[in-house]
């Protein structure tokens, strides 16, 4: 029947009223740079793979990691996780355990035998990779995925570089390392171990290589002049760790071992000494704890295993089993200065862990590759002075960590690929950072961080078994779901729900659009978006 004039209206007849004309600003959906992604030296899209892990998509999440980092199980153990330092959740309650979830995914991949395929047709170009540490392996992996033929050469008899010979098994079990290396090699990477490259130029021309990537790392322990009598037993930290890396017994160091140095290698040397029977492992370091290059958690774990520290001390002389230690004091700008006070310290062995240097002899044939401060100089395409010769990892400028090395390997591979194919250099603009202030913390459930269990101290000190356990699936899932998904929509429907004008449309489970015909620009969607993925942008006047 017809409605009375004017006093009775049809349902929803207000749609013709374009309240959009009220707007002075409009909501825009963004994909901001989550702080964890921004901080990850390997350039992983952490927010994205956590998002996939959250609903149990572990394989999908693992494949997302593998787009950037071919060694998730290794990284899940030895990376110093700067992502967690940057994690916004740290300001809400506690940072998300990204590290432990990455390890879970890496282990899951090994357990389930997930593999990665090469989908780009062969380019017909062959790249030489010198060094099979994290940097060389990452480069090899990415170059293979980009369709190039790759040969990895390493002086050692096994691949892995510092991961195998510099990091003890209790931090990185060999079966995990071997599994992830095998997966890379399984992609058709040619391998030549026990092969030292002395003359890169000839090696390249003879092998018909179209480009070379140098990733020899910094394997040479730095020495210092300790006036030492002949009987004193001094050993280099890398040599100790290398000898102890096999399954066999490892060197005899005696009861009292002094480790000279304050970096991660010094910590590993001291902890390895404890495992080789040393009842006393003392780290002598010339400055104070807060200035140690070692990662704080490495120092904590060493202390937990009974390693003792002598700050502000240097070794002035070593005579037989007697060391002369000089006390130091820090001057105005934090540099240690001798005090002239001396003490005696008994030691069966002294382990030198004073940093490592790069062996650069392979560059002799390439005069145009210049070196400064003991590392190879590269341009922003990671290319050295010599065309076609690229470099990365500890042998170039940058943090000397495995993750940074992987980051160099990935970016080098992409630039080598671009160089070989003559296409422009990859990489777009970085989106703005998703800062904590943008987030609306109310919507996240209260959830304390989960804890990774550790072996009891007794067992830790007596074996090389892995100290830190991984997370079981349920805990890993819980931890992944603590992610705030900073600056990236995760489909919580808040915008769709809180719009007073019903002007946000839900196109799909995690897909929304603004109906600009009706949106008044009140800003409620932006304010109530838990992860700050919506911004109000002024209308153009």
């Amino acid at each position, binding site marked *: 029947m017809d409605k009375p004039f004017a006093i009775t209206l049809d349902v929803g007849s207000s749609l013709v009223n374009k*309240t959009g004309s*009220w707007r*002075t600003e409009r909501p825009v959906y963004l994909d901001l740079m989550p702080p964890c992604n921004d901080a990850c030296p390997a350039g992983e899209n952490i927010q994205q793979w956590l998002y996939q892990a959250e609903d149990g998509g572990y394989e999908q999440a693992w494949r997302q990691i593998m787009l950037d980092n071919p060694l998730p199980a290794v990284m899940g153990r030895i990376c110093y996780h700067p992502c967690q330092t940057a994690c916004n959740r740290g300001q809400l309650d506690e940072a998300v355990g990204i590290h432990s979830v990455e390890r879970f995914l890496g282990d899951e991949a090994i357990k389930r035998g997930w593999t990665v395929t090469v989908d780009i047709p062969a380019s017909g170009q062959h790249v030489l990779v010198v060094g099979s540490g994290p940097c060389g392996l990452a480069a090899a992996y990415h170059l293979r995925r980009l369709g190039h033929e790759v040969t990895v050469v390493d002086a050692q008899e096994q691949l892995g570089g510092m991961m195998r010979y510099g990091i003890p098994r209790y931090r990185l079990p060999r079966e995990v390392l071997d599994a992830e290396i095998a997966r890379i090699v399984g992609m058709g990477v040619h391998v030549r171990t026990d092969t030292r490259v002395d003359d890169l130029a000839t090696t390249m021309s003879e092998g018909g290589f179209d480009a070379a990537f140098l990733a020899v790392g910094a394997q040479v322990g730095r020495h210092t002049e300790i006036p030492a009598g002949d009987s004193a037993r001094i050993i280099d930290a890398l040599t100790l760790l290398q000898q102890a890396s096999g399954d066999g017994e490892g060197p005899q160091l005696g009861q009292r071992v002094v480790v000279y140095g304050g970096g991660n290698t010094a910590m590993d040397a001291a902890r390895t000494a404890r495992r080789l029977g040393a009842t006393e492992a003392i780290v002598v370091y010339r400055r104070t704890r807060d200035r140690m290059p070692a990662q704080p958690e490495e120092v904590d774990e060493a202390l937990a295993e009974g390693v003792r520290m002598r700050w502000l001390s240097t070794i002035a002389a070593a005579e037989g089993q007697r060391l002369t230690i000089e006390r130091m004091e820090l001057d105005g700008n934090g540099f240690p200065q001798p005090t002239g006070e001396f003490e005696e310290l008994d030691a069966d062995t002294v382990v030198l862990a004073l940093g490592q240097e790069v062996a650069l002899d392979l560059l002799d044939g390439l005069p145009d590759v210049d070196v400064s401060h003991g590392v190879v100089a590269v341009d922003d395409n990671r290319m050295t002075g010599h065309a076609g010769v690229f470099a990365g990892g500890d042998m170039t400028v940058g943090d000397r960590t495995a993750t940074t090395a992987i980051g160099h390997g990935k970016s080098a591979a992409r630039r080598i690929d671009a160089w070989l194919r003559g296409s422009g250099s990859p990489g777009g603009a970085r989106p703005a950072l998703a800062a904590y202030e943008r987030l609306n913390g109310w919507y996240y459930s209260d959830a304390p961080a989960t804890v990774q269990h550790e072996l009891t101290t007794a067992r830790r000190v007596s074996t090389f078994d892995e100290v830190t356990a991984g997370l079981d699936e349920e805990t890993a899932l819980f931890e992944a779901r603590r992610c705030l998904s900073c600056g990236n929509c995760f489909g919580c429907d808040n915008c769709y729900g809180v719009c007073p004008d019903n002007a946000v449309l839900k196109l799909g489970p995690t897909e929304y659009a603004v109906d600009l015909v009706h949106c*008044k620009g009140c800003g409620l969607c932006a304010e109530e978006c838990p992860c700050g993925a919506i911004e109000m942008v002024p209308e153009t*006047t």
Partner: protein
Amino acid sequence: MPLALFAEGEADDGRSLMYEVRLHGRGGQGAVTAAELLSVAAFDGGGWAQAFPSFGSERTGAPVAAFCRMDDRPIRLREPVLNPNALLILDATLLHLDGVFAGLRPDGIVLINSARQPDELGLGDLTGRHPDVTVTTLDASAIARRHLGRPLPNGVMLGGFAALSDTVSIEGVLQALRERFRGSTGESNACAAQEAYDTVRLTREATVDA
């Protein structure tokens, strides 16, 4: 019942100099206050003025209009302003709203709060239809932000209008602002209006010379 119970009045023959202004803004931007202050400024200047809002229930953000009528004799008229002599547009996002320029007199003047030049506002069809309509822009929001800390353009626009029409003086506008907003707000509104006045005078002289 004596006849003298009602007062006798005569018809008035002279033509009045009525000048009508329509202000466009959004609910909460002070368009109605601006119309009222314009009428106070005209009254202080010795004339008669009448201001009234577009009677309705406009909400915060909704487009709203307000009117001010000025004359040299008492105003009795109670009809809406149908053919304004001047338009003050407090929010440039209203420009493409239909009806904003409705009924504008052919020789009308338009002052728009915008950081851009008049020809950059896509008003081709308006100036096309009415060649001698003068359009001036003034970044009132920026001036207001500098003086008041908030982009409240209403007082600033009145300063600009005083430079475009002699129906109201800048002194009248400043006095009206100081009376309405006591203390520092009044003072900063007045300074903002003065800056707007000087700015528009400059642009007007510039266009006149060009």
